């Protein structure tokens, strides 16, 4: 089971800034371990963000994204009290969804 994300969402005017910190190895598949064997790639492939259940953003990621990635985006029309949920799926089929309330 993957570790939880940290999601913060703050409304300003008719927009909300969402900041997400994900806990993930993001192994590129290019590195070798101490025995000289290739470390298998393990990275987030799909990211989906929803506002009150409606998808507002999707992203396709690859092995070039850093370990423990930080994602920030702006959602139009999000008000205080709305629910923002973020989901990621990685190339090993693991996934994680976390939710935060816009403040």
């Amino acid at each position: 089971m993957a570790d939880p994300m940290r999601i913060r969402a703050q409304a300003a005017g008719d927009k909300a800034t969402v900041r997400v910190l994900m806990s993930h190895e993001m192994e590129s598949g290019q590195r070798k371990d101490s025995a000289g064997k290739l470390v298998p790639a393990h990275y987030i492939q799909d990211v989906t963000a929803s506002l009150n259940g409606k998808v507002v953003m999707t992203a396709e990621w690859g092995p070039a994204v850093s370990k423990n990635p930080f994602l920030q985006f702006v959602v139009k029309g999000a008000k205080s009290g709305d629910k923002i949920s973020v989901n990621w799926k990685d190339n090993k089929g693991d996934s994680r969804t976390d939710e935060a309330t816009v403040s």
Partner: protein
Amino acid sequence: MMKRLALAIGTVVVAGSALAQKSASDGIAEYRAMLQDGNPAELFEAKGEDLWKQKRGPKNASLQQCDLGKGPGVVKGAFVELPRHFADTNKVQDLESRLLTCMETLQGFNATEIAKTPFGRGEQANVTALATWIAAESRGMKFNLPNSHVAEKTMYEVGKRLFFMRGGPHDFACATCHGSDDKRIRLQDLPNLTKNPGDGVGFAAWPAYRVSNGQMWGMQLRLNDCYRQQRFPFPLFGSDATIALGAYMGVNAKGAESIAPAIKR
């Protein structure tokens, strides 16, 4: 008259460009400020808080009764008073070695085994996460190590001697780089650890997240890596040598504000 005017303009331009020139450390400070907002140390904080409350280990107990120096279960403010002497173990302990004691006595883990585990693996990774959260609970507080018990005073003196002890194939000491103001290695400013180097600098900045390798480092790993740079044999996890150095730096840092967990290049 024209000539004098031209000269005056020339002077202004030179002064202006000198002002606009940023020092390397300003650039790094700016970079850190940009990263601070999404400091992945927060992930370790969250994990550490969870681990503290979770019932784990052979005894299936949480760490909530762990005495970090301010009484069982008191976390806030504990970090800025460590290392200190503990009556139950009759030892001066730092945060990480104290956590091992609690994990052994309360949860039934084998502290010796954890100490032998490489950094970042198994229970050792959990110790780092716990240390990150405990440090975060004292963020913004000022260092104030007790240093009144005779064992604490001894540790401080031992730490001071270790700090100035030259050795290894390169024949240098901690003090060679960290013994005076305004020194640097490549672009990194080096804090002067023989005194209070300022808020959030040196001892007051660890545990920290290293962006370059994506690792969370506690003080034990920080010191371990210092010894690696010195080409010394690695000190054992939680050994008296590391705690003595911690006591020396911690006492010196009295009054410095802790920003831990920080973010490093």
